[in-house]
């Protein structure tokens, strides 16, 4: 009973789970609202029981000064990507880059350096296929645009890590801001453009000798190729995610218990329904369960799952099985934040040391609780608004000039459409009621 009170108190103590519940209370049914505290406390208690049963919790060691004097000889690389924020109708993105921050604290020369590992300005996707086939519906167009941007960023980040491996960099660690393996399902939609041959060959030189036909240049194939290469990297590579909006860890843990016959199918299915109903995520649960400085050992989890509505029946469905499984663990770096998700394509032999390094770098941001190197490279790689605006203006003007020069009416119409396309603004919304 005492643990239940403790967990309830933890939930009420402004946990992210409680905050999330308050936010969605407007839409939740009265019954859900009424039972929220009891149900979520019981869910947390049960998950904690299973975690303890599986012996997944580890206590990490961190003593500031001592930790850094021991680890000052380590070379760490932090990778993040940035895409311009401007919306322009075209293949997009116009400008994208991935940056690396490499640091070896005790190095006598070149202690730290930043590099724009991958930079691109222009059309990353091949204009010969669906690129310029405008969709009449603006909403659909925006959806596709965002997917293109996301796809480009993910590929750039993967390509950056590949580049470091190819160049045989002597890193002790490499960290990526975001999942080490993203979900590819959104990019399997029909009409998603392929990358240009030039782009693929430059990002992944090892693919030059391979066939680079249109299908091979699709996001899913290129990404799979990159991940397989990353998996073979000689230094530990981790993807680190600030918060989890889903519950892959808890779901997989319970799935494993169900597979082992420790939980009945019925209980498993009910549990999955409950966490969906109450919008409970890994972050919510583990924030309550773990204490600062504690971690969860990784579970091997399949990220690309067949049978989703989007991929089902698509030509990409069979590919899902080919993607490597991901080892997912969590570290609670501070008392006040949700645990961060740690992803890797390999199960590390020095897991505790690796996790302690991640904890140490996160403690340098004592409030935010996230590896400071990723915070640094995030600022470096971000494409500022002024740069986005400038590239948009340059691109649009260039296109119009070309169009006028060619005297092709269709191209001119296209350029005009691009130039006139503006982001939606609340200020431009029609005013309701009687206008003066």
């Amino acid at each position: 009973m005492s643990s239940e009170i403790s967990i309830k108190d933890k939930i009420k103590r402004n946990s992210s789970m409680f905050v999330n519940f308050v936010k969605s209370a407007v839409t939740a049914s009265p019954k859900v609202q009424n039972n929220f505290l009891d149900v979520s406390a019981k869910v947390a208690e049960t998950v904690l029981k299973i975690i303890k049963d599986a012996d997944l919790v580890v206590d990490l060691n961190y003593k500031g000064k001592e930790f850094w004097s021991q680890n000052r000889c380590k070379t760490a690389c932090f990778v993040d990507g940035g895409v311009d924020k401007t919306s322009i109708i075209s293949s997009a993105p116009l400008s994208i880059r991935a940056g690396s921050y490499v640091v070896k604290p005790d190095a006598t020369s070149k202690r730290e350096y930043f590099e724009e590992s991958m930079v691109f300005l222009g059309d990353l996707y091949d204009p010969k296929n669906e690129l310029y086939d405008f969709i009449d519906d603006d909403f659909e167009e925006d959806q596709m645009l965002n997917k293109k941007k996301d796809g480009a960023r993910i590929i750039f980040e993967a390509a950056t890590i590949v580049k470091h491996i190819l160049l045989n960099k002597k890193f002790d660690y490499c960290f990526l801001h975001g999942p080490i393996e993203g979900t590819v399902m959104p990019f399997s939609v029909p009409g998603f453009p392929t990358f240009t041959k030039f782009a693929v060959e430059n990002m992944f030189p090892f693919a030059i000798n391979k066939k680079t036909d249109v299908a091979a240049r699709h996001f899913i194939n290129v990404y799979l190729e990159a991940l397989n290469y990353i998996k073979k990297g000689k230094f530990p590579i981790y993807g680190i995610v600030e918060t989890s909006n889903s519950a892959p860890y808890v779901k997989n843990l319970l799935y494993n218990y169900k597979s082992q016959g420790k939980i009945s199918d019925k209980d498993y299915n009910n549990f999955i329904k409950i966490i969906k109903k109450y919008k409970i995520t890994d972050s919510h649960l583990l924030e309550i369960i773990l204490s600062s400085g504690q971690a969860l050992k990784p579970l091997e989890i399949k990220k690309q799952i067949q049978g989703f509505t989007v991929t089902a029946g698509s030509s990409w469905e069979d590919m899902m099985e080919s993607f490597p499984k991901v080892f997912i663990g969590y570290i609670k770096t501070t008392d006040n934040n949700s645990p961060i998700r740690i992803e890797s394509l390999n199960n590390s032999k020095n897991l505790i040391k690796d996790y302690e390094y991640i904890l140490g770098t996160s403690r340098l941001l004592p409030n935010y609780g996230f590896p400071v190197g990723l915070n640094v490279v995030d600022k470096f790689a971000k494409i500022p608004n002024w740069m986005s605006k400038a590239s948009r203006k340059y691109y649009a003007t260039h296109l119009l000039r070309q169009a006028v020069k060619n005297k092709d009416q269709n191209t001119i119409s296209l350029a005009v459409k691009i130039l006139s396309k503006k982001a939606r603004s609340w200020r431009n919304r029609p005013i309701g009621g009687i206008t003066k």
Partner: protein
Amino acid sequence: MLKNPNWKSIGTVLGETFIDCFYFSLKNYKAKKGDIVTTDSKVPSSEGKIIPVTVWGKISTIESSNAFFPTEAAQELTNEDIDIRDTILPTTRDELICKVVILGYTKDEDKSSKLLPLIYPVRPAATVKYPSSEDVEALLISDLNSSHPIYIGSLLAREAVKIRIDADNLVSRHVSIFGMSGSGKTVMVRRIMHEMLCKNYPMLVLDIHGDYLGFIQKQKELYPENKIKLFYPNLSVSSEDKEIIYTLIDKLGKPLTDPQKDFLNSLLEKVKYEGGSLLKYVKLLNQRAREYASEGSTSFKNIRPASMYVVARSLGQVAKKLENMEQTNFRHRKKMSKLKFVELADPATEPEKIISKGQLSILYLKGYETLPASAIVSILLENLFKHRQEVNEEIPPFLTIIEEAHNFIPSRSENKDDLPSVETIRKVITEGRKFGTGIMIISQRPSRLDETIASQCNSQIIFRMVNQRDQKATRDRSETLDVDDSKQLPNLANGQGIISGQVVNFSLPVQIKFDEKLINEDIGNENFIDTVENWDDSEAVKERQKFAQDFSDISDMDNRSAN
């Protein structure tokens, strides 16, 4: 044309630029606050052409930031006592953003380096360059357009750039020099005096502390062609001007009642004095007042002898204080026996003894209280100014240097604006430009100065200043002091000052050249601890001590009780 291909590139202009300023990203350690920088630009000419120009500006602020170093990381480093160099935190990403106040532009095609006001913003993304010291110096001197520049020091940010100020504006448009004690005001004044002496320009210095006596000591060596005279004050009164007696009694004596004032009025009318020493006159009045009182004179209607005695006593007090001040001044002069002091000549009848070509006159006022000193200055300046106003000029234009000016021109808020010097200096400073009677006022408390007089100074030289009221007063009374420069005032070191106004074209932070040889050797330094360590009582003190105990014993014995 002031343009040199060898000027080093030190930064890049940032995105937004204006007519009066721009910002640029600076390479590490390549420039400092106060440095003069340039950037190439283009402006439309009046003929509609686009002409290449060089834009000149002064770095007014430098901000350094490291966007990659999160604030909360500092918290962890401090709490855990971690050395940043042991961690993965970046240490090399400092961004330096400079604000440049635009001074003007020079046309690339012109030979002249005259600065013109910028009429079109500089180009964003243009390269910012660091011009050579010679070119900056050439620009400053050329732009000053002065027929008589005088060297005062170097640009604070760049020692190699010599700074000259315009002597013509200095002597005609009045200058104020402000700064706290020990900040470098006197060093600056000595520098100016040195240069002006070399130009044979007559100067009159009202010296309270003897800071300028070094000029006399070094005359033979440094200024063999100049006359340097050291005066001590002579409080005189003319036969017509007897108002001073009322003021003296009011300030130094016992305040009088109305019947007593009536008696004083009658006394002044009865006692004839052809003019001359003020002290003699006061003593004469005192003697006569006593005589009238003892006689029980009836020549004064309704005034009782008691009232006459009060007036006599008050005049006696005034005489005593004046005598004391003269004595104090005399003792100070005596200490400097090597120097030749002469009594101040009568400015009404012999002004040429005080002001003449190539002459520096120092009036040594040490020992005098505010009112008598003010009276002395008032009479002196009033007469000299009259001579300059006359058609038949008897004396050449001259510069008056007023040290510790708050003693002579106090602010109204000090309730001392009835000092006779206030009105005189106000008149001289307002009309002086026409008659060549420039004034330089020096003070460590600008907020205590008369507002009208201070704001008449068209140029300012400001040294370190910590007092907020003084900083505000300085800003309020200067039209040309750069706002960013004024923020620097509390942090200036000794001898560092900011010059603004008509003696320079734009506000400049300057390191004043220190003329060591002009220090008064008799005053020496202020190292009193050393003085005490080497102290030996004077002979007179030793003599007194020799007999003191004997007298003390006698006194003790005398006071013993009977048993």
